[in-house]
């Protein structure tokens, strides 16, 4: 505090002022931290994988594709002549859902003409990353996908 252009001794009031300010800021931070953690979406994390059935193997033609939701994620499952393949159905470009072209035996995205092979690799168009590939197994006539 300056008086007549010279610094004067801090008073008890100045001290109380600062104590209140510091306490208010510290309390605000202590309250805001948990609130921000609260607002962060709850997502299942950790090594536990989700494995869900996506259909019966019988009645599933070769080179036929089906879409399913596994663990909340859209998945594209294709029966090939060598077995089943499961890929993420979400295009890595801007998030549109992809389709399977049974004639070309490729996965394509209708939004911006992206194309992927059945290993998820980008074969055309703007996607920056390949499609994630998921584990798939056939047990007692049922097809399971793990994400």
């Amino acid at each position: 505090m300056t008086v007549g252009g010279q610094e004067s001794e801090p008073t008890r009031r100045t001290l109380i002022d600062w104590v209140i300010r510091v306490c208010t800021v510290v309390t605000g931070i202590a309250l805001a931290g948990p609130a921000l953690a609260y607002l962060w979406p709850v997502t299942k994390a950790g090594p536990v994988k989700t494995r869900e059935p996506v259909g019966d193997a019988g009645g599933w033609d070769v080179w036929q594709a089906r879409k399913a939701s596994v663990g909340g994620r859209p998945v594209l499952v294709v029966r090939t002549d060598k077995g089943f393949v499961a890929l993420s159905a979400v295009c890595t470009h801007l998030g549109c859902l992809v389709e399977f072209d049974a004639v070309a035996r490729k996965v394509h995205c209708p939004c911006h003409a992206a194309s992927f092979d059945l290993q998820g690799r980008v074969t055309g168009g703007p996607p920056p990353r390949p499609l994630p590939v998921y584990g798939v197994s056939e047990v007692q006539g049922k097809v399971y996908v793990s994400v």
Partner: protein
Amino acid sequence: MFGLSKRFLRFLADRYPMRPVLDFFDHQARKRLPPHTSWLHVFGSLSLLAFISQVITGVLLLVYYRPTPQEAHKSIQYITGDVRFGWLYRQIHAWGATFMILTVVLHMMRTFFMGAYKKPRELTWVTGALIFVLTITFGFTGYLLPWNQLSYWATTVGTGIASAVPGIGPWLSKLMLGGDTVGAETLSRFFTLHVIILPWALALLAAVHLLLMRTQNLATLDPVGQERPYPPECGIPFWPVHVAKEGCVALVVLGVLVTLSVLSPWDIGEPADPLKTPEAVKPEWYFLPTYQLLKYFVGPGGKVLGILVSGVPFVLLFLWPFLDRTPARHPKQRPVATTMGVIAIVLALVFGLLGHLSESRRSFFGQTYQFDIYGVPHPVETEVLPGGGKQTKSMD
């Protein structure tokens, strides 16, 4: 950090007429409060703090709460069990409701006993009484939202009482319920009231209340018309002295709320079942005195008479500054008003206690009592059966 704010203020002052605004806040901060201002004068700001806390925790809960009968209870379970610190915010909100009602009541009591409602502050009292009514309405509407057994049936009882109001009762009940019984429409209406209508109404009323209070300053204990202006050096500066007091109390209360949230959490309860009424359903503590009082009015016109009688304190509450026109403010110089205030508090405590004890079984000094619906204890005898079991029977 504070240099930045000064620079920002200078930026604004160069462009906008900031002087009147800054002078107003500076004047309010440095204003001197009457010399008798004490720790009893913190309840007003504590009520405001409680309201702000309820708004913040309420908005957080709104992110995950789902206001439908199918999802409401599950969303509370999700908040409590899955969301990080969800349990904490839910508990602070639940305990905060009790705390807010308590501080508003204590603030009203302080104002009443110090005669601060007298001329020229009658409208400040009336807005305060309205704030009190809104606060308990908050409690009533919020209580249904968890959609557990207690919520459902306490609301059924509360709206049932409303239906007995003379003349408009059935209409009022139907409007509140959105139908004939507590259901999805009731939840929707109570939710709308609780999260939009009541918060805005209370915020507006609180702003008016604060403005009126700040314009006239705190009342002294001098009689009406004989207020002596106190020399500035005798008054207590609002900033930082009184704010420091309020800050201390606020921090302590915040700590108490968090402690209660950890050590004495509210149950989630069982999901509401319209086909199963639990035994001895009772409202929350702030409705217990009225709830218990109504039980004593029996017979054909009993319910209506009970509602009229229980409405009298609320009418008196609003009209009191216009009924009590004596000039004295000091409680010792107003024996009639002070006595009536004390009687009102004692009656509320007695009926509240009777309501709490009614329809319950308690043991005192080795003797078990069953309290009936009027709160009258009846001793019961506990008999030990062959095989170790126990059987109780009334000794009346």
